[in-house]
C-alpha cells in the first residue's frame, strides 16, 4: 500500500521521435503514426521498474523522466 508512485513523463520539445523507448518499454509505450511515443500515464508497478529505468536512461534526447506522484 504505497502512497508514492512513479509515472513516466515526456518532454515533447526534446523528443525527436527515435522510438527507442517503445522498443525498450512496449508494456507502457506505443508509437503514434509519426513515430512519437504515446506513454501510458498510469503509475509504474515495481515489476516494471527495471524496464522503465532502462528506458528513461536510454533516450538519446534525455526527453524522458520518472516523476513521483503522491496517492495510491
Amino acid at each position, binding site marked *: 500500500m504505497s502512497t508514492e508512485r512513479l509515472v513516466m513523463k515526456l*518532454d*515533447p*520539445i526534446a523528443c525527436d521521435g527515435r522510438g527507442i523507448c517503445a522498443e525498450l518499454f512496449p508494456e507502457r509505450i506505443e508509437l503514434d503514426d509519426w513515430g512519437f511515443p*504515446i506513454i501510458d500515464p498510469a503509475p509504474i508497478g515495481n515489476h516494471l521498474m527495471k524496464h522503465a529505468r532502462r528506458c528513461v536512461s536510454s533516450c538519446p534526447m534525455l526527453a524522458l523522466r520518472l516523476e513521483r506522484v503522491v496517492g495510491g
Partner: protein
Amino acid sequence: MSNATAGSAYRVATAVGPRGLPRLLAGVASDGAVSLVTHRTAFPAPRRPGRHAAADLSGIVDEAGLRGRGGGSFPTATKMRAVAGAQGRPIVVVNGAEGEPASSKDRLLLARHAHLVIDGALLAAGALGADQVVVCIDRASTRTVHAVHEAITQRASANERSCAVRLFTVPPRFVAGEESALVSLLNGGEARPTLKQPPIYVRGVDNRPTLVCNVETFGHLAQIVNFGPRWFRELGTAGEPGTMLASISGDVRRPGVCEVPLGTPLAEVLDLAGARVQRLQAVLVGGYYGTWLAAADALDATLSNHSLRRFGAGVGCGALVALPGSACGITETARVLAWMAGESAGQCGPCLNGLAALAGAMRALAIGRAGRATLTDLHSWAGMVERRGACTFPDGAARLLRSALTVFAADVDHHVRHGVCVHFNSPPMLRVPAGGPPGPGDWR
C-alpha cells in the same frame, strides 16, 4: 457608492462607475485615443499602495469575480496570489499579442484607451511590488504600437511613472501570445512555447515571478479598483460577472468589437454586429482556437462558459464568426487548419506532424477526394495530437476539427459521397493572415 471590502489600501474607491454599457469603451471615440488628461478626469493616477496591498488587491479582484479575458477564463486573483507568493521582485506583462485572427478587441482597446490598460497593469504592479510593466503588442499592428508608445510618452511628460512601463513588440504568430512563448521572447529567446517548469509565476521574465494577463483583463482590473467589485457585478451573471469585448466577424453587416455583459444571448451579440440570422448556418465561438456551433445551438446559447460548456465550447477570447448557409463549413475549416498547421512552432512531433496530417486530410475532404477511411484518419489523428504538445495549440486545432465534423456532419457525408459541394467556390468567411508559414527567423 462605497465598497466595504477588506482591501484597506483600496477602500477609498468611491468613484461612481458608468451605468450600463459601455464600460471599457466608455468615452472612447470612433477614432483617436483617450488622452491622459481626459482619462485622469475619471481615473486617479495609481498611487503607491501600502502594506498588504497584494492581499488587498487580490481580495477585491476575487470579490469582483474577474476572470482572464484572453481565452483561458482563469481567475485573475488566483494568478495574482501565485505571483505574490513566489520569491523575488515580480514583473507584470500585459499580453496584447492577439495572434488569434478572429480577435481584434485587444488591439482596439490599446489603440483607443491604452491608459486604462496601463493603469490596470500599474495597479497590479504596485500591489505585487513589481518594478516593471511590459506591454507586448503584435508587431504588425503598427497603429496600436504607435498608440501605446504615445500613451507611455504622455505619462512620462506628466511625470507619472510609478514604475517603468515599456513596450515590446511581438512577431505576428498565433502561438507568440502563449504565456511561456512570450516569456521566452522577453528573455531574449524565440516566441515559441516552452515547458513551464517551474511555472512562470515562480520564474518567468529575468527568472522573476511574472504576472501575465490579457489586455482586456487589466482594463477591467483598473475599473474594479476605481468603481468597486459590487459595481463590476452589476452586469454579467453571478458566476461570470462583468462585461466582455466580443470581436464579431463573418457574415455580418458591421464587423467589429462590441462590449456586452457575460451571459448575453449570442443572438443579441450577433445582432449588434448586424448578423443575418435567417441565413445563419453556424457560429465559430472563441475564434480559430474555438468551437463550431450549429446555428440553432448558437441562437439558443449565451456568451458564457456556463451556457457554452454543453457544446464543448467556451467564451475564449470572445471572438465570434458568423457562417452563412452559402458557405461550406468543411472548406472554411480546411483553410483554417492548413494555416494553423503552418503556425505550429514545430517543436513537438505530434503537433508538427499531426496538424499537417489533419490539414491534408481535411483538404482532401473539402475538394472531394476523401473516402470513409479519411474520416477514420481524421478522428484518430485528432486524438493523437490532443494533450501531447508542450502547449495546448494542437488541442485547439483538434477541437476545431472535431466540432466541424459534428456540426457539418451532413456536409461531410455529402463530400464523401459526391465530391465537392456547390459552395466550394464561395468567398472565404474565415480569413487567414497573409504571409505564409514562418521561416526560422520569424520567431523573434
